[in-house]
C-alpha cells in the first residue's frame, strides 16, 4: 500500500496507523498524528485503518514563538 507520510511516499505493509508508525520507526516517540487532515488521537491509532493514497502527518514538539 502506498501512503504519504509527512509528504514522502512510502510503500508499507501496514493495515493500521499504529502498524505504519511502528514500521517507520516511531516506536514510543512523543508524537501526534493526523490522517487526511483529521486529527487521530493516540488511543485510536490501532483502530484507524489506512487505505492506498492516505496522507499521514506525524508531528513532534518543536521550538515556537
Amino acid at each position, binding site marked *: 500500500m502506498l501512503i504519504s*507520510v*509527512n*509528504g514522502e511516499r512510502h510503500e508499507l505493509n501496514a493495515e493500521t496507523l499504529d502498524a505504519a*508508525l511502528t514500521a*517507520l*520507526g*516511531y516506536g514510543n*516517540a*512523543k*508524537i*501526534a*498524528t*493526523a490522517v487526511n*487532515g*483529521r*486529527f487521530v*488521537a*493516540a488511543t485510536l491509532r490501532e483502530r484507524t485503518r489506512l487505505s492506498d493514497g492516505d496522507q499521514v*502527518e*506525524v*508531528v*513532534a*514538539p*518543536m*521550538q*515556537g*514563538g
Partner: protein
Amino acid sequence: MSFYGVELGSRLLLGTARYPSPAILADAVKASGAEVVTVSLRREAGRERGGQTFWSFIRGLGLRVLPNTAGCHTVKEAVTTAHMARELFDTPWIKLEVIRDDETLQPDVFGLVEAARVLAEDGFEVFPYTTEDLAVADRLVEAGCRVLMPWGAPIGSARGLNNVYGLKALRAHFPEIPLVVDAGLGVPSHAAAAMELGYDAVLLNTAVAEAGDSVEMARAFAIAVEAGRMAFRARPMEPRDMAVPSTPMIGRAALGDRDRVIEAR
C-alpha cells in the same frame, strides 16, 4: 494575574525559537523569570529524535507551556494542529494563529474567530493572536476567548507598539479580560510602554533570541515589564501641551530686569 484560572507571578511570556543554543535558551528563560513558554510542533521523521530531545529539554525547565498553531492559514489546519498540540503537550491552552498574509503575518481575523469558536466549544482555552481591532476582539470574546493577544507590530519586526490608540481603546473596552501584547516588540521600552497602558502581560521571542546577548536582554525585559506594571499601578500623570514649572515660583527672589518691569506695574 491569571489566565483561565491559572495564577501566574510573571507577566512576561517567552518564546523558545531562534536562540543560538539550547543552553542560551535555558539561561534566557531563567533570566526572564517567565513561567510560561511558547512551543510549537513540526513534522518528525521516524528515526529522527529532534522533537523528543526538545520535549525532554522543555520538561526540564519545569514551566507551563503554551503551544501555538504557527504556520496555519486555514481554520481546518489550525483546529487539527490545536488537537495535536493538546495531546502532545497535555494542556487545553492554545495560542491560536490563523495567518492571512505572509509578508506581515497578519492574522486572518475571520478564520481566527471561527477557529476560536470551534476550539472553545471543544474545551480548549484559547489565546488568540489578533489585531487591535475592537470588533474582532468582541467577536473573539463572544466565541469563548477569555484572554486576548493583540499584536504590537508584525511578528519579528521589532517595531514596538504601532497603534497605541487602538491598544488603549482595547484596554478600556475590556477591563476584565486579560490582555497580552503579543509580537512586534524589539526593546524593553516597548514592553514597558505596553504595561504602562495597563496590559496584563507581554509575549515576546525574537527580541530576546536574536539579541547579541539573549540572557542580558531577557533580564532587561523582565525589569521593563515590572517597571511598566508598577508605573501603571502608580497612575501616571496626563500629558499636557504647555510647560508647568516643577519648582514653586512663590518667594522667588526678584533679581532680573524682567522682575523690575513686572513690579513697576
